[in-house]
């Protein structure tokens, strides 16, 4: 019987509409109360001037194990998550072998348990080997503990497969996560197609490739009644269509990454491979649409799209370098810098996108401080100024476009199941 009292913080829990200065009391790994508490506790944490919120959830993470342990392991990725204030991650199935069968999913759950750090929720592949051709053993994956389905970075190109996957997953009420892009339009692309790609002579990926795929998925959500989750949205056209689909009552949700609402395509003028991400960094009009989509609720969640790579994989010529940034440890500070500091979102809105929003899409009992909920808690110091230093990352991937950025605000203390799992 261990009790913990987090004293005097600003408790923000968007799942219950709470934003108040109070004590948060935890016992035996569960939330007991939010309010004024005078009862003695085994552990006392002073949270004066801090924000106390449900543990953050990153719904889009690549942990690379099994198969690519040089880039990341479940243990290093889970440690990086905690350092970023994240207590739960959903990890992509494009490991080697792919998580397209029950044993593969159980391995991840087992390794995450051994690491004993952040909670890890595996996603299952929609299709065998993520090859877009044949459905994976979706029912058995659900039994193994998979929470949703995705072919990770591979867009589900075949509309018929997408349609059948939505229908089949509907039996288990699980969403299909799709990376929306028309493969033949982005093939060989390195960056967003616009003036800068023309100037640099780098092959571009038009925003239309995303818009078209989003339009198709919305049409299929309508025809099947299935749940479509659109991963890493980045274009104005996508956001417009998602807004209308939601207004029409379709079961469509969307997520976005901090780099896609923070950085523009002109960064590629440096030819720095850390700016090579997919979807690509776009232009000012797209960024403005992303911010608007976050403000009006069109975009439900912010995720890191954590794509760690060993240094030798990212220090190559731009066309040979894989897409992606190591994002777990910059998710919160960059969201604060780009959304809170300029006043685009307030704290409850931002925390909602990092807790309640992803929890609802994943269908997991996390992201809330309701009485009896798991005592996963993130305590954020909103004022502390610090410099992002990739060399200090817990992740094996030091590939970040934000190295050296001076930021304000970070997770100071992180509790998982009522126990302090990370402290600055």
């Amino acid at each position, binding site marked *: 019987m261990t009790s913990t009292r987090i004293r005097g913080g600003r408790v923000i829990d968007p799942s219950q509409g709470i934003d108040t200065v109070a004590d948060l009391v935890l016992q035996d790994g569960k939330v007991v109360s939010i309010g004024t508490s005078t009862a003695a506790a085994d552990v006392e944490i002073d949270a004066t001037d801090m924000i106390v919120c449900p543990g953050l959830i990153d719904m889009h993470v690549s942990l690379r194990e099994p198969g690519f342990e040089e880039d990341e392991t479940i243990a290093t990725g889970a440690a990086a998550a905690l350092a970023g204030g994240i207590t739960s991650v959903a990890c992509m199935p494009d490991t080697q072998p792919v998580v397209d069968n029950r044993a593969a999913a159980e391995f991840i759950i087992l390794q995450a348990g051994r690491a004993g750090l952040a909670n890890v929720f595996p996603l299952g592949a929609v299709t065998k080997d993520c090859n877009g051709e044949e459905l994976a053993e979706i029912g058995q994956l659900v039994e193994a503990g998979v929470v949703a389905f995705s072919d990770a970075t591979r867009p589900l190109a075949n509309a018929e497969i997408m349609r059948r996957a939505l229908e089949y997953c509907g039996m288990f009420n699980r969403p299909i996560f799709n990376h929306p892009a028309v493969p033949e339009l982005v093939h060989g692309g390195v960056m967003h*197609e616009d003036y800068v790609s023309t100037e640099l002579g780098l092959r571009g990926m038009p925003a239309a490739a995303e818009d078209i795929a989003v339009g198709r998925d919305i049409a299929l959500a309508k025809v099947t009644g299935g749940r479509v989750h659109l991963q890493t949205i980045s274009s104005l056209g996508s956001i417009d269509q998602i807004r209308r689909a939601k207004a029409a009552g379709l079961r469509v949700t969307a997520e976005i990454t901090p780099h896609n609402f923070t950085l523009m395509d002109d960064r590629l003028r440096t*030819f720095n491979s850390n700016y090579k991400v997919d979807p690509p960094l776009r232009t000012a009009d797209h960024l403005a649409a992303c911010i608007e989509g976050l403000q009006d609720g069109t975009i439900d969640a912010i995720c890191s799209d954590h794509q760690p790579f060993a240094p030798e994989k990212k220090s190559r010529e731009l066309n040979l370098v894989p897409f992606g940034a190591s994002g777990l440890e910059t998710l919160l500070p960059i969201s604060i810098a780009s959304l809170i500091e300029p006043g685009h979102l307030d704290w409850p809105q931002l925390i909602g996108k990092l807790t309640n929003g992803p929890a609802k899409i994943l269908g997991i009992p996390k992201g809330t401080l309701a009485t009896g909920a798991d005592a996963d808690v993130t305590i954020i110091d909103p004022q502390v100024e610090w410099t992002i230093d990739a060399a200090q990352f817990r992740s094996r991937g030091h590939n970040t476009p934000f190295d050296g950025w001076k930021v304000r605000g970070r997770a100071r203390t992180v509790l998982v199941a009522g126990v302090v799992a990370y402290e600055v």
Partner: protein
Amino acid sequence: MNFVTDTDNSIKKRWTKRHLLGLEYLSADEITMILDQAAEFKRLAAQGETKLGLLRGTVVANLFFEPSTRTRTSFGLAAKRLSADIVEFSAAGSSLVKGETFIDTARNIEAMGVDQVVVRHSTPGAPHLLAQNLNTSVLNAGDGTHEHPTQALLDIFTIREHRGTLQGLTVALVGDISHSRVARSNIWGLTKLGARVIVCGPATLIPQHVEKLGVEVATDLDKILPELDCINLLRIQFERQRSGLFPSIAEYAHLFGMNGERLKTAKDDVMILAPGPINRGVEITPDVADGGHSVILDQVTNGLLIRMACLYLLNPKNSP
């Protein structure tokens, strides 16, 4: 013999850049300095001064990660004319195949005491990557579909030689603009020196927003032909394209190829340039390539002088 004239001295003294990564990053004045230096070398060559000692004791590395006999030979010969030592490196059979990274390879070559690196690579930005990671001077000999500054400089030099100035001339770049590093470098250089530039080709080979580079766009060659002072016929890069960007070579030649018939509608003193190696019968018919308007062979000669000028001005040693 170490033959340094007053002109050499004054240009080299004014030169401040360490790398030549592209014409985007040079001012009009800097471009003119290179042209003037090349003109000075041409004057010396006409006097029989073909072997100069200006880079004696320096080492130039020719790093060609993509095959190109012509450019490579031109740089090699330019270095020899200046008495530099040359290290030749090509990707074929190198440790690159064994998984060594591009930067590692370059660092190893630098460690051999190289002063200047000439680099050709299929990826845009590869020379920039070297400039960020090496201490030597980096000279871009063509990076993917981004820039090919010495080719553009020799094109511009050849035009200036015949017409005295670029100011007020109308120059068309005809062909595959999307996949052409020559086009991009030409656009930067020509517009900075005051020329009017039109890019012309099939709509599928003209990249989006190219007009923001300060050029006009045309898809009908016959319509613009009478206005042109210079026509630079870019090579169709069959190997760099996705399929289906134009219907057939025959149709391309029909719409955009330069032949004797078409040439009749051009100005009497129009100049025909081509960066070569040309696909005879596609971009240009033999009668035009070898005809009186063609300056293609001048371009080859001038290429050597331009590369000498670049190597000389950029070499960190031997400042007068």
